[in-house]
């Protein structure tokens, strides 16, 4: 393991990857540095570096060791890290995700209300009143790890996970909230569902958002749920 300056560590992941670890604590600042490194490495198109995967506190960089030497990979990474300036991030991209918090779309809303001691309208209001930063994508195609859910709506996971959750389900699992981009098993409490097709393998861009974008949940009725075009994914840019 190579120790680097500023507490950044380069961790070996076999012969074709390494993980650059910025910190062991999740924070927006650390995640900004993570995203900057991933985006910048991608932009610089360095021969031999094949792919970058940003996570909460680090970036896993994949490379072909027959094309680029490890030392050079480390050098290129260090160059990018040193070029980082605080506040250099561009505009904020917010994806507007319509969510129906009612009826069959919210099978666990009652249990969340019971756990939190809040009314359904209050849970809906709190859940949809802030923008969530996408820290990283992983676990499933397009599954976004979101930061910053209000503590008042925290709810433990289900005792036994469901074997199948419909695509588009929006859930709460402990301190986290998120959208299931495709049907899968899962243990989060489901408080709503979006009619949008978040993930589509055949689409030009299978997943519309990336780490660093924001998600805003917009409450809709059951009637609206039926009417919304699943492909009509809206995104706004804010300062």
């Amino acid at each position, binding site marked *: 393991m190579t120790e680097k300056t500023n507490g950044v560590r380069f961790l070996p992941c076999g*012969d*074709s990857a390494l993980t650059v670890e910025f910190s062991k604590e999740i924070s927006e600042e650390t995640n900004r540095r993570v995203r900057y490194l991933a985006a910048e490495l991608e932009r610089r198109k360095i021969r031999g570096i094949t792919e970058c995967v940003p*996570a909460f506190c680090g970036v896993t960089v994949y490379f072909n060791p027959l*094309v680029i030497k*490890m030392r050079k990979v480390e050098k290129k990474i260090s160059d990018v890290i040193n070029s980082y300036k605080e506040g250099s991030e561009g505009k904020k991209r917010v994806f507007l995700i319509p969510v129906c918090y009612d009826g069959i779309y919210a099978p666990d809303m009652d249990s969340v209300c019971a756990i939190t001691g809040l009314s359904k309208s209050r849970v809906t209001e709190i859940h949809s009143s802030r923008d969530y930063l996408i820290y990283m*994508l992983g676990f499933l195609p397009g599954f976004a790890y979101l930061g910053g859910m209000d503590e008042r709506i925290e709810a433990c996971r289900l005792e036994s996970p469901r074997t199948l959750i419909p695509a588009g389900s929006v859930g709460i699992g402990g301190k986290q909230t998120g959208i299931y981009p495709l049907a899968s098993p899962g243990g989060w409490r489901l408080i709503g569902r979006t009619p949008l097709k978040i993930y589509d393998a055949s689409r030009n861009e299978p*997943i519309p958002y990336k780490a660093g974008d924001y998600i805003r949940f917009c409450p809709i009725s059951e009637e609206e749920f039926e009417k919304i075009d699943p492909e009509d994914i809206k995104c706004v840019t804010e300062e």
Partner: protein
Amino acid sequence: MRDGGMTVPNLPNLSNLSKSPEKPEKPGKLKMKITAPGALTTVQDAGRTGYMSKGISPGGAMDVFSMKIANILVGNSPCDGVLEMTLTGVTAEFSSTEVIAVTGADMQPEINGKKIKMYASYEVSPGDVLKLGAAQSGMRAYLAVSGGFDIPPVMGSMSTNLKCAFGGYNGRALKRGDEIPLRQSVGLTLVGKRHAEGEARSYDDSITLRVIPGPQDDLFTEKGLSTFFSSEYTVSSKSDRMGVRLDGEKAESKNGVDIISDGIALGSVQIPSAGTPIIMTADRQTTGGYAKIATVIGADMYKIAQARPGTRVRFEKTDFKTAVKLKRKEERRLKLLIYNFSFSK
């Protein structure tokens, strides 16, 4: 391509010799009909690049070396799509003249009831039946057909992602009656008869995997690391294309194995809370929250791809330099093979 692809800049492009022009004359005409699908057969190539940051696994052949040899034997680009067959192979009927080759686990291939060799190219004619049986040793065999499959790539790859049901043949494992569309093969005679029996590897029931410690080896105690490197594990039957699970002694951690989720490389040896290792393979999750004690080197991944349940596994420490040297050696073997074939008929 996961490894950045083959780099063979100065050699004739063999794929152009056998592949059809952009538009086949009679699209959809050429087909390979599957009359028996085998236990688990999927279309795979070298996997997808550039989508891991969106949470999409690279996928691709489990034993990439065998896949490349199969393609080279039929004159395809080394990373073209092939059939990956698990434990038992397919029976397939051809409706056109093609060149085929089977590599990897020996599934006793036959054409029209007559035994053929593994690691060699054969011409098949319309009506011919290729029949593969059960693997004699090893786990996975690869069938390449000249010209490759006429299957549209999804996110730049033909690989089947079974979990998310996309890519390959309708996003699923093959069934009886499936008709795999083939690209037209032109210039078949240019391929000629090709042999690569020397590239066949033996798949033992006891394997040693060389690993580079890390990324999270520092989360384990001295005792835990010593357990990991000194004990013998066995491949569990719960293994699949996502990961190969091992049974055996638990590797002791200092303060638990939960980490803040980060990227999972090919060959990562994850230690979940149960304490026994899982080697992450082609269809692995892109990120995960368990500590990874070590990473299997690329040159040894074929061993785990070919390891059946019950195979005994040991881990041996190696370093980056050795791993790259072995990788380069493997690449040279492939290049040499392409080179030799391009000058002989």
